[in-house]
């Protein structure tokens, strides 16, 4: 294993230092890119004080990405997770800690903290912005590791655009987008239908079974320019998804077949009123509602249907005002209120919605004392009805040493509110030993009632420590050096560290008379993630770019490290005999790879031809604890490191036609247990047609 990472490290510098490029593309095409997520206000990328990655529409199309997953998995510092859909880990932090926004509005509907990125179709997307580091000072809960903001196109004027794609496993993706533009009115619509016969390489079944998926999604956007200074934007998004699961388990010649179905619908509806009082003062009012609805049903051969529902409703109103005080001072102010509620089969009653309300206010000040320096300070306060309130400060600065060198430093605190599951779960697993998990908001009451009925065998110390959950907090420091010696070369080196406290963890609080365990949630964990990220891009020739990314990541649970240091943690040697675990064999938090590498070559020319080849490497990561302790160490079960190769070529003709073919996971790498979302090699072909505006 070590050999592989070393040899990759040797290859990497060739990608990076030999020659590089990527974002240059953006820069050359559109001039200096504009970022909205970093400051909640449009800023030039070159003036932003925090680490930001922009993935533009052209990059998305050229790699043939359909879903958000497809594009994020190729970004430095990001890792996809499997289980409850596909989630994203940012700098080693779990999917719960990254907020996903569409045009600045949050998506909801997380299962076990994971928001399935396959839900998001990448049709009419203008760009994706990724901000790394705690951003709660602007976005509140969940923006602890960072923010991913998907910005739909609000500009193009191609009346009709269609595309049809066919690929392995009968995967069909068809979309139509339309646009209409007059002086005072703008409309854009997008419809997408995706279906696949699926590939589910389930480990515990006798055969490879498929998971057919059907997804329909649509986005609609209307913009009215009421006057020169006032506009109204209305957006709507709807997704309907149907997943079929046929699970057959055979044992001793007896095969049991279960038919499962998962039906998910979610919609978002937003309206924004923008008004500009003067060049120095503008404001916007936003109203937003989203609803996520999941219904899972499983029919087994014995005929007992099992139905699981989850419904999350989220409503928000918000105002934000931007004030340019002077050339060197800009301020923003915002305030808003959220009402949200969840209904779930796994709470005490699936008919009663559990509610929470949040009120918040934030402000951020951008100060440019002189040309080379930008300092930004911001703070946000979130008041929550069902758990403790949170303050989120952040300070960042940008120093332009000279034309070629920039230094960015940011320090911020992020938080994640306890989610509904941690507050209200009421779940007993009859299939596995009848253990129960109770959310902390009612655990004491429920368990005390059970105790009065004589059903509780023992109560642990943890039970008496149950109290209102606090948010989880992280403090993040990011130091970035950007080096751009000439227009063809870009190198960025970033060091980061996130310290997390108050982590909410499942703990046993007692046991039933039968001995079955009772669990609840407590704020007890402390952890850290730290590492280095490297990004480099170089333009070899006109239209030919080579780029590379690398991440070194180290993670750990601070309490586990303290225990290992005191010598009370044991592991097993090759004979199975116990031995004391030393810190050098400690593997940190599970599902994190120490090394990740991306290398890409992109080519395009003025005739509309494009081609690209991408190689992604991820080193081994710990998955299961198997050697007799509760920490992850070198003796545990690791998933093997792997490389996947992806390629695509295509051509856009001047008459509006376009063709593209591509292959993913060319080496056919399969790891059934640890990478259930990675099918073997897949291929696709796309044709598209645009009705162009003739001017």
């Amino acid at each position, binding site marked *: 294993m070590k050999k592989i990472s070393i040899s990759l490290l040797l290859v990497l510098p060739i990608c990076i230092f030999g020659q590089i490029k990527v974002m240059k593309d953006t820069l050359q095409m559109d001039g200096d890119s504009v970022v909205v997520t970093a400051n909640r206000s449009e800023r030039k990328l070159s003036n932003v004080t925090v680490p930001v990655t922009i993935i533009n529409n052209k990059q998305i199309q050229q790699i043939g990405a359909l879903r958000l997953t497809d594009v994020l998995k190729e970004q430095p510092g990001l890792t996809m997770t499997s289980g409850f859909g596909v989630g994203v880990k940012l700098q080693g932090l779990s999917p719960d800690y990254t907020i996903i926004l569409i045009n600045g509005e949050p998506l909801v509907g997380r299962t076990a903290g994971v928001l399935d990125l396959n839900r998001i179709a990448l049709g009419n997307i203008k760009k994706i912005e990724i901000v790394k580091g705690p951003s709660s000072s602007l976005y509140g809960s969940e923006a602890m590791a960072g923010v991913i903001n998907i910005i739909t196109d609000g500009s193009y004027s191609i009346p009709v655009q269609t595309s049809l794609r066919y690929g392995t496993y009968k995967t069909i993706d068809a979309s139509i987008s339309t646009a209409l533009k007059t002086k005072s009115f703008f409309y854009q619509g997008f419809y997408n239908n995706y279906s696949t016969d699926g590939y589910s390489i389930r480990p515990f079944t006798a055969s490879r079974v498929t998971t057919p998926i059907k997804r329909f999604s649509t986005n609609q956007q209307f913009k009215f320019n009421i006057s020169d200074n006032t506009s109204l934007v209305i957006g709507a998004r709807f997704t309907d998804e149907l997943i079929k699961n046929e699970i057959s388990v055979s044992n001793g010649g007896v095969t049991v077949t279960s038919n499962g179905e998962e039906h998910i619908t979610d919609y978002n509806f937003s309206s924004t009123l923008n008004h500009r009082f003067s060049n120095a003062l503008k404001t916007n009012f936003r109203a937003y509602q989203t609803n996520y609805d999941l219904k899972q049903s499983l029919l087994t051969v014995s005929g007992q249907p099992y139905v699981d529902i989850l419904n999350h409703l989220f409503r928000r109103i918000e105002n934000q005002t931007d004030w340019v005080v002077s050339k060197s001072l800009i301020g923003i102010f915002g305030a808003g209120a959220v009402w949200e509620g969840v209904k779930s089969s796994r709470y005490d009653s699936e008919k009663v919605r559990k509610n929470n309300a949040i009120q918040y206010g934030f402000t951020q000040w951008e100060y440019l004392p002189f040309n080379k320096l930008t300092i930004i300070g911001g703070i946000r306060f979130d008041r929550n009805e069902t758990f403790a309130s949170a303050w989120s400060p952040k300070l960042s600065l940008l120093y332009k040493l000279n034309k070629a060198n920039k230094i960015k430093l940011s320090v911020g605190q992020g938080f994640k509110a306890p989610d509904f599951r941690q507050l209200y779960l009421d779940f007993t697993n009859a299939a596995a030993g009848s253990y129960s998990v109770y959310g902390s908001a009612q655990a004491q009451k429920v368990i005390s009632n059970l105790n009065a009925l004589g059903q509780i065998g023992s109560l642990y110390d943890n039970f008496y420590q149950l109290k209102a959950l606090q948010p989880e907090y992280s403090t993040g420091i990011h130091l970035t050096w950007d080096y751009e010696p000439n227009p063809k070369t870009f190198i960025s080196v970033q060091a980061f560290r996130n310290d997390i406290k108050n982590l909410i963890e499942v703990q046993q609080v007692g046991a039933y008379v039968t001995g079955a365990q009772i669990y609840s949630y407590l704020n007890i964990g402390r952890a850290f993630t730290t590492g280095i990220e490297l990004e480099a891009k170089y333009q070899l020739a006109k239209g030919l770019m080579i780029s590379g990314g690398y991440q070194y990541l180290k993670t750990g649970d601070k309490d586990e490290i303290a225990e290992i240091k005191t010598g009370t943690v044991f592991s097993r040697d090759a004979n199975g005999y116990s031995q004391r675990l030393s810190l050098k064999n400690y593997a940190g938090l599970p599902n994190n790879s120490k090394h990740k590498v991306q290398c890409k070559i992109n080519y395009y020319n003025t005739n509309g031809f494009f081609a690209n080849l991408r190689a992604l490497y991820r080193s081994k990561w710990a998955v299961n*604890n198997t050697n007799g302790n509760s920490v992850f160490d070198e003796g545990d079960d690791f998933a093997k490191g792997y490389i996947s190769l992806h390629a695509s070529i295509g051509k856009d003709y001047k008459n509006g036609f376009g063709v593209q073919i591509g292959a993913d996971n060319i080496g056919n790498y399969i790891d059934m*247990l640890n990478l259930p979302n990675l099918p073997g090699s897949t291929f696709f072909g796309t044709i598209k047609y645009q009705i162009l505006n003739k001017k």
Partner: protein
Amino acid sequence: MRKIINQVALVLVISAGLFACSKEDTGVVLVNTDNVVNDLRADTIIGKDLITGMPVSAGKYTFYSLERNEIVANSDSASAKWDVAFAGTTILTNSGTSYSNGIGGGFVYKGVLYDTLSKVPADSVFRTDNASASPKIYAITTGNTKGWYNYDFATSLVTPLAGRVLVVKTASGKYAKLEILNYYKGGVTPISGTEEEKLAKQRYYKFRYKFQPNGTKTFQ
């Protein structure tokens, strides 16, 4: 240097133990040496309930004599011939109300290495079994992470916790130390096995132990 020689000697003794306790050779009393017992069946899964789909076992303990390093017939369950008994993850000692009401007992010694456990502390409390209590109490504590094993809900695997030694008082009132090494057939945890394999291969104990015949609580 001396330590190394001791360790080499120990390895030799252990390998001798490995050969000595192959099935043909049981019954040989190995005095105060390390014995390794492989694949001791402990109420292994014999089938599956066709209606509920739950695995089914015979519900029988396997009785074992640490003094003579051999399996004791079930017909002798109500005797002082056995010291420990295994069924699933439950381990009995010949004490309290377990089958024979013997004078044995034991406890799970946490945070200690088998090799360095040379003397059981004088103030150690030897627990006894109480099968009539509710929930049942055993000298060797049962339950996930509380006694000798960890059960992982994600993988459905049972792994013996490292750094835990079972200190056993035998039916004749003598002492032994015992470390569970594995719970699966062949001494290999089927990490990437199917659910069926995991069921079929579980409940096969691999453990090592040292029996002190002189009645003291020291192991040298």
